[in-house]
């Protein structure tokens, strides 16, 4: 990849060295206190300052060499890894991408067969499916309608507590509680929607962030109803349409003539959440092709133009909030029945951030992207669990790499909802997203 023109060589090397020098200087400034100095507790309890200039020098040298090589070899390419992939591989990948969704679905359906024996992998699969569903729900609000929501976990919490409380106080079955939890979460979505109708971008993000915290604090402090920090335990577990997963005579295993195994319930829960996620997916794909879905996307593209065309932006925004919240509520109800115990600790801002990261990483508005991103993020978390110390470091590095190389997410094209002659995917560069401010 070196340039053919020999005469420009020394020049390029000098320029690269200069750039690398600047990078190294920045690295030195950053790390001189972070790595160069270290405080330990001495024997008397006082802090002892030790220096680690060796490690500091190593880091700065690594940065210098890395920046030097990058400046020298990748200058022309800009930041693009695409060049490193042979064209042949790209062609095959492009051919396969049409089947990616089907492949992913098939994989999702056979997971319990592959991992029947391993409770650990089944639990992980359930977790991934739950976050996929949350991602689908948030995708309606953030990806389609372009409303940046940092408090999505509030609806997850409302769904979970609705299910837990209704099931405990009224003894209703899971299948009745599930839609109720969804409806209550949708109401919470409307509640959030009204005050933020006029807000966009950063301001909307701040208010939704606050809303998420308000819900969590209510759950924490309304001790009579929610049990406060102790949470709610003993939430009824789901039954297989009336057959409980127990070793008893009238249990699921005995009725079907199977040998009792606690894995039955886990497999059932897995298929339940996959079914819910698929339902959400079907619903979203369907809505995208309906006028309401197009109005959401138009709202994301240009709200003023929408209003000039007779689109009622108030109801359009509220339906996006309410429907997104409803699916969050379903996922919450599932979470409650799976765990059997919920407390406000499960609904912190970290959850909202994780779901939002999944949506952004997946590519705003793309369903397949969200599913893949959920698998990659949560799978990645588990994969690096063994390197506990470096887990967040690797995770952070991965996020930086993604932001640099795929700033528009894994699936960065938008598929038109309708076409006259042929369906052509739209490059992300022309599509607005929740982070782009539309000037009023």
């Amino acid at each position, binding site marked *: 990849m070196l340039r053919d023109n020999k005469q420009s060589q020394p020049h390029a090397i000098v320029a690269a060295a200069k750039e690398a020098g600047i990078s190294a200087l920045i690295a030195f400034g950053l790390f001189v206190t972070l790595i160069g100095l270290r405080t330990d507790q001495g024997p008397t309890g006082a802090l002892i300052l030790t220096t680690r200039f060796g490690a500091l020098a190593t880091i700065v040298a690594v940065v210098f060499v890395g920046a030097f090589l990058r400046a020298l070899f990748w200058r022309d390419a800009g930041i693009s890894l695409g060049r490193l992939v042979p064209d042949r591989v790209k062609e095959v990948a492009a051919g396969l991408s049409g089947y990616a969704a089907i492949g992913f679905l098939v994989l999702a359906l056979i997971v319990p067969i592959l991992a029947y024996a391993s409770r650990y992998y089944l639990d992980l699969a359930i977790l991934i499916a739950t976050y996929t569903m949350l991602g689908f729900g948030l995708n309606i609000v953030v990806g389609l309608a372009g409303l940046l929501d940092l408090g999505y976990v509030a609806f997850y919490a409302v769904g979970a507590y609705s299910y837990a409380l209704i099931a405990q106080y009224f003894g209703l079955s899971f299948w009745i509680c599930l839609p109720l939890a969804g409806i209550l979460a949708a109401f919470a979505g409307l509640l959030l929607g009204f005050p933020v109708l006029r807000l966009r971008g950063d301001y909307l993000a701040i208010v939704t962030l606050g809303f998420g915290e308000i819900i969590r604090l209510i759950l924490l402090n309304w001790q009579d109803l929610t049990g406060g920090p102790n949470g709610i335990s003993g939430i009824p577990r789901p039954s297989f349409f009336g057959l409980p997963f127990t070793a008893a005579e009238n249990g699921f295993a005995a009725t079907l003539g199977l040998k009792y195994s606690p894995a039955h319930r886990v497999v059932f829960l897995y298929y339940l959440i996959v079914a819910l996620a698929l339902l959400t997916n079907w619903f979203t794909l369907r*809505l995208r092709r309906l*006028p309401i879905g*197009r109005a959401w996307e138009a709202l994301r593209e240009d709200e003023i133009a*929408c209003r000039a065309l007779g689109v009622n932006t108030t109801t359009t925004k509220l*339906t996006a909030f309410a429907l997104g919240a409803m699916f969050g509520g379903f996922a919450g109800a599932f979470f409650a029945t799976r765990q059997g115990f919920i407390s406000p600790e499960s609904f912190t801002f970290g959850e909202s951030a994780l779901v939002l990261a999944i949506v952004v990483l997946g590519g705003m508005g793309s369903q397949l992207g969200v599913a893949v991103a959920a698998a990659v993020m949560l799978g990645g978390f588990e994969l690096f669990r063994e390197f506990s110390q470096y887990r967040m470091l690797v995770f952070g590095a991965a996020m930086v790499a993604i932001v640099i190389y795929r700033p528009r997410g894994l699936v960065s094209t938008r598929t038109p909802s*309708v076409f006259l*002659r042929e369906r*052509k995917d739209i490059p992300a560069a022309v599509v607005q997203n929740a982070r782009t401010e539309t000037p009023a």
Partner: protein
Amino acid sequence: MNPAQILVVEHLTMGFGGLIAVSDLSFVARRREITALIGPNGAGKTTLFNCITGFYKPTVGSLRLVHQDGASFMLERMPEFRIAREAHVARTFQNVRLFAGMTLLENLLVAQHRALMRASGFTVLGLFGSRGYARAEADAIDKARYWLDRVGLASRADDPAGTLPYGAQRRLEIARAMCTDPVLLCLDEPAAGLNNNESAELNRFLRAIRDENDTSILLIEHDMGVVMEISDLIVVLDHGVKIAEGTPDEVRRDPKVIAAYLGVEDAELEHVGAEATP
């Protein structure tokens, strides 16, 4: 109520704090005519548009829109989306506002949101694939195709609107406005950035809209070639005040208009004055 009138503006004043953008403006736009609003920059033309289309609420005054069947709408009391869907006033914007990441066809379908929404049973019926909705969508696509043909963009129906060249984006915005079945079409500088051929084409197109589609047009324009050629009535604003009103010939000779225009350093606008001086 005179059925020949489509828009009656009476004593309209729009103030922003201490700044009066439009002051005590009254005029009447007639049905099936092209009414042009001209005036130097900052004369209050776009402010007036924003009042008519409901984006601003006027401080004082009334805006009455009259349909052919006699139905009359108090525009100053309606929110903008109801002005578009009930009073059937459509508009374009000075700096084009398309849905850049959506295809041309999708842009024109969003303009038919109201009808499609009703056909889809407010989403409920559409969700389960009702036949009525499928039919309504096919009709909407036909209408979109008709308007794409009219503006010569049918071959690009499946491309994103953001990738169109500027002139084509302006035409698409007009097509999108027409898809709302307007009785009054408000165009904010439709000829801005167009070359001579394109603005001649635009003239033909606007006349065709007026004559064939039964739509009256309200036009803000700086391109005097367009204004003088196609307008039936011209209203001249300066600093928010109406200084003249009449046919192109009358306005061209009006000394107040010449004075207002000669006051600004703009070659294109001085042209009007030059023409009018004997």
